[in-house]
């Protein structure tokens, strides 16, 4: 479904992604872990189409199409969804109005009829149960004054109603207490199926106790330096990111020697 080949990207003058290679198939859940500043969030935003990231090399195929030439809205309509680490507060736009506009934009693109107010409300009510979200939030301005947990639940609610093929969860566990984490994770798990791929980005192993991935990749200084299965996460937790860092430094020294 998603093929990332030698992807390079920078923000300003900083080269953040330095040759990412990753294949994600339908139905698979991939976790991407890594220390702060390793490029996890940059990867998520590049995939979603954020404009201030400049792709300087490589390519990304999504269902065989060149993802990087598509606008953010085209990606969303084609089924790419990014759950934000920091969902944006938008005063003056009610959550319902926003959700309805989003759902219908996506439905229209997929050749489905737009939902009227009643149909939309029925859909929302059903999906809200997934994340145990309070219906009162619907009438409030989008994310404004929402607690950290409410914002993240709102992200997963959006994911549920937009029904994406590829969902990227950017540090969805950050700022959540254990109860909120459990609710959010069970919402995500309910949305797992054989057609939908997920990329779960996280700093901590903790989230992966709830959302169990098929594959784990470790990102360090803009590259995937280690890939494996669930056990890799446990090893990382035990040894810490310093383990990766020191391994990388050794291999760099090795590189220099071989150059000599």
């Amino acid at each position, binding site marked *: 479904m998603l093929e990332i080949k030698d992807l390079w990207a920078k923000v300003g003058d900083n080269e953040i992604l330095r040759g990412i290679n990753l294949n994600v198939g339908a139905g698979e859940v991939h976790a991407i872990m890594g220390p702060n500043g390793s490029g996890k969030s940059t990867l998520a935003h590049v995939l979603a189409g954020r404009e201030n990231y400049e792709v300087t090399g490589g390519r990304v195929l999504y269902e065989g199409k060149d993802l990087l030439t598509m606008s953010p809205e085209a990606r969303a309509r084609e089924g790419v969804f990014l759950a934000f680490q920091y969902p944006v507060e938008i005063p*003056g736009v009610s959550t319902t109005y926003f959700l309805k506009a989003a759902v219908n934009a996506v439905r229209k693109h997929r050749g489905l009829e737009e939902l009227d107010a009643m149909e939309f409300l029925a859909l929302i009510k059903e999906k809200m149960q997934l994340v145990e979200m309070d219906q009162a939030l619907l009438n409030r301005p989008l994310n404004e004054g929402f607690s950290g947990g409410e914002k993240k639940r709102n992200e997963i609610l959006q994911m549920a109603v937009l029904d994406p093929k590829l969902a990227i969860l950017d540090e969805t566990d950050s700022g959540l207490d254990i109860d909120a984490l459990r609710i959010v994770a069970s919402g995500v798990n309910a949305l797992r199926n054989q057609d939908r791929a997920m990329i779960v980005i996280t700093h901590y192993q903790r989230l992966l106790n709830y959302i169990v991935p098929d594959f784990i990749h470790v990102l360090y200084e803009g590259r995937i330096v280690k890939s494996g299965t669930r056990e890799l996460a446990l090893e990382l937790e035990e040894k810490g990111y310093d383990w990766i860092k020191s391994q990388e430094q050794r291999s760099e020294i090795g590189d220099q020697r071989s150059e000599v």
Partner: protein
Amino acid sequence: MLASESKELYLSEFRRYRNNGATKNPPWLRQLRESAIASFQKLGFPTTRDEDWKYTSLDSITSVAFQRGNGVAKTVTADDISTLALADSARHRLIFINGQYFPHLSSLGALPVGIRVESIAETLQRNDDSLAPHLGRYARVREQAFVALNTAFMEDGAFVMVPKNCKLREPIHLIFVSLSNGESVASHPRSLVVVEDGGEARIVETYIGWGMGNYFVNPVTELVGGEGTLVDYYRLQREGIKGFHIGTLEVQLGRNCNLAAHAITLGGALVRNDVHAVLNGEGSECLLNGLYVLDGKQHVDNSTEIEHMKPKATSLELYKGILSGSARGVFNGKIMVHKDAQKTNARQTNKNLLLSADAMVNTKPQLEIYADDVKCSHGSTIGQLDRDALFYLRSRGLSRDDAQSLLTYAFASEVVARVKIDSMRQRLDDYLLTKFGRNQESKIQ
């Protein structure tokens, strides 16, 4: 034509008016006119060298020989007017065309006993002296050239009188239409709203333009709120693209009076809105709530001044502007806290959203404080749409244009939400959504 020549024209027009139309006026009014024209003669038109007019040039008004009494209204229906004025559900409305009252287009439903809603010209014809204690007592005839000009030439406008403890909750719509088919029409509508102690009123003044010609409208409204009154006042402005509007609202508030004055400016080529609110009683509360939505070559100058005269009064001011094209906005907000006005609470905010590279705003908040125990703040911002918010909306499938128009609408909503008349708020919402929706269509083409 130079400003000095234009001034001469108004002076000679007044000499004719003095010996003709104004002869039937009672002595107090004739006297008021004489002192007003003398002030105008002394003041002349303001120039950009005057601090209060620094960013607004009046050349486009002073270079044209606008004439009173030009243009007669025969082609407009009450329905046309209501639609344009966003007031189709209005039960009580007075309609003025080029400054003159049109009874057959107006309508008044049943009003509580004692309340008066009428045309000032009618009041004067009846030899009724109810106007004398108020008219011209609050507006700054000696300092403001356009108030002086209005006072010299005023013939008609609305007179609303709400007696003691009388509560008028249904809105009274005062609709001022300028109709010009190329005759450079001038009008000087003058209104007076008096709400006596304990009274309540809701007034909507709407200005609209009709026809292809240019025109100049120079309205002045004096609004007096007695002790413990509750007044909700709106000035909605939808002048035509060749409309020149210099408007003044002069407010005088008594003890524990609560006033909300809304200024929604959507139209006009050159517009100046002067609001002067004097909080002349302890514990009074004043909200100034403004929105200006401009594009093309529109120039709109909002100049507000709040004077805290007595202790424990509160003023809250929020003006927001949305500018596109090569529009120019000016915000001049002054809060003056006099030395007796201890425990004053004043907050002023001006926020501007620029949607194009050529749009421009000058914003100048000012605080002058002569009391020592007060809480005052002011702030202004000029910015573009938030990029994070745009990306967030687009990442959910909204097109760039839809995301922009939604965020623009959201920016205005804080002001629109304070409009308490449901039908008007709904009309404004629709107007704004359509307006920004239309903008996007033209972008696509």
